[in-house]
């Protein structure tokens, strides 16, 4: 057994251990903190699988932004005592569920062990796409996202908008048109303001760097956008800025800008290059960067709005 495989087993045990804690913890908040730790730990596994792009996304979205969402929800719901019936499921039912879960896990495990060798792969197609329409992109993942599977990426942006609409519509009728509840009810606290003031500029810089470097190195629109979103959230948490009202024109424009520009570029491809989402080779890289820039804007606007929740009636003037 080599040193590396010992490390892998250690990491695997740690991940599964924290996952078990998330399921088995007695109180709600313990489970939520466990899940946040688990999200950060997942980034390790992706590094071990040589997937720094995925690790970056997992760290930013899974660890950071989801952390704020769940901690907030967990704290608010934790205050509700007896909201859920205490009745424990019967032992037989528990055992039955455990058996079912074990069966599913074993089936997936067996499938993992019996994967065909050599594995079927779309990598050659993707490599061709990277050399063709996505020419000039050194990062194959960005090439896949923006060229080979561009339709998925566009629809995923649409899903984000749908989710924002869904979250907004959960609010009461009276509050419609207002802003989501501020991230912090009390007045700001100096250390928090200091934290936001140094973190936000650095984070915005790093976010833009990730987006820009994403054409050739790990990074890209998702990761850059998620970092920018997190920085907006930090400034809102310090009450340096307030959440915007949901009917603000600029907010709505930023939300739809990503998919809209993507769609326009796709339709233009139909006319100019003969097929949907085909970019003329000489212009491929600038067009992809343009689309990505608007995607960054949309992601940075959508994620904080998802965390902020529905518009609320203002209680403080």
């Amino acid at each position, binding site marked *: 057994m080599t040193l*590396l*495989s010992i490390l*892998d*087993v250690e990491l*695997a045990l740690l991940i599964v251990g924290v*996952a078990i804690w*998330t*399921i088995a913890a007695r109180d*709600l908040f313990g489970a*939520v903190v466990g*899940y946040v730790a*688990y999200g950060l730990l997942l980034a390790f*596994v*992706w590094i*071990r*699988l*040589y*997937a720094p*792009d*995925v690790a970056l*996304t997992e760290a930013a*979205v899974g660890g950071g932004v*989801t952390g704020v*969402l*769940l901690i907030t*929800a967990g704290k608010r*719901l934790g205050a*509700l005592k007896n*909201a*859920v*019936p205490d009745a424990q499921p019967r032992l037989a*039912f528990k055992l039955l*569920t455990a058996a079912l*879960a074990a069966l*599913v*896990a*074993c089936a*997936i*495990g067996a*499938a*993992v*062990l019996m*994967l065909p060798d*050599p*594995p079927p*792969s*779309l*990598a050659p197609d*993707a*490599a061709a796409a990277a050399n063709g329409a996505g020419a000039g992109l050194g990062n194959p*993942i960005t090439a*896949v996202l923006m060229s080979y*599977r561009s339709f998925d*990426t566009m629809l*995923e942006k649409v*899903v984000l908008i749908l989710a924002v609409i869904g*979250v907004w519509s959960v609010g009461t009728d009276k509050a419609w048109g207002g802003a989501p509840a501020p991230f912090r009810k009390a007045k700001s606290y100096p250390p928090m303001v200091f934290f936001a003031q140094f973190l936000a500029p650095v984070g915005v810089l790093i976010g833009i760097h990730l987006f820009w470097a994403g054409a050739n190195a790990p990074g890209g629109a*998702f990761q850059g956008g*998620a970092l920018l979103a997190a920085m907006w959230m930090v400034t809102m948490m310090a009450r340096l800025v307030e959440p915007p009202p949901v009917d603000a024109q600029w907010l709505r424009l930023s939300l739809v800008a990503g998919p809209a520009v993507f769609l326009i570029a796709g339709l233009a491809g139909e006319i100019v290059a003969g097929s949907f989402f085909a970019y003329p080779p000489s212009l491929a890289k600038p067009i992809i960067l343009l689309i990505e820039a608007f995607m960054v804007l949309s992601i940075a606007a959508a994620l904080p709005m998802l965390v902020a929740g*529905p518009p609320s009636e203002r209680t403080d003037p």
Partner: protein
Amino acid sequence: MTPSVLAGLVGAALVGLGLYGLILHPHPLRKLLAFNLIGSGVFLVFGIVARRGAAAGLRFDPVPQAMVITGIVVAFAASALAVALILRLSAETSRLTLDPEAWTKPDGKDAT
């Protein structure tokens, strides 16, 4: 055992754990956590397919990896929607049960 196979087995274990929690926990937020565990387990299994796809001379198969990135963002959007629904339910009824019969039978334990 290669790291990919190990990660795949971890993914399988996570799906099993998540399924167990999803069925047994009465609290909706705990169910959401469990559901996210299932999701990340599936991503891991999908991700090792990426690691194995070294066929094209790449160190990984970029197609599944790109789709996992998309998947993580979509999973977050779904979680955010679920949290908004749960919070509204609690604000509206000051209870959090998903038990369908809870609406029909009067329950003296928690006054609404």
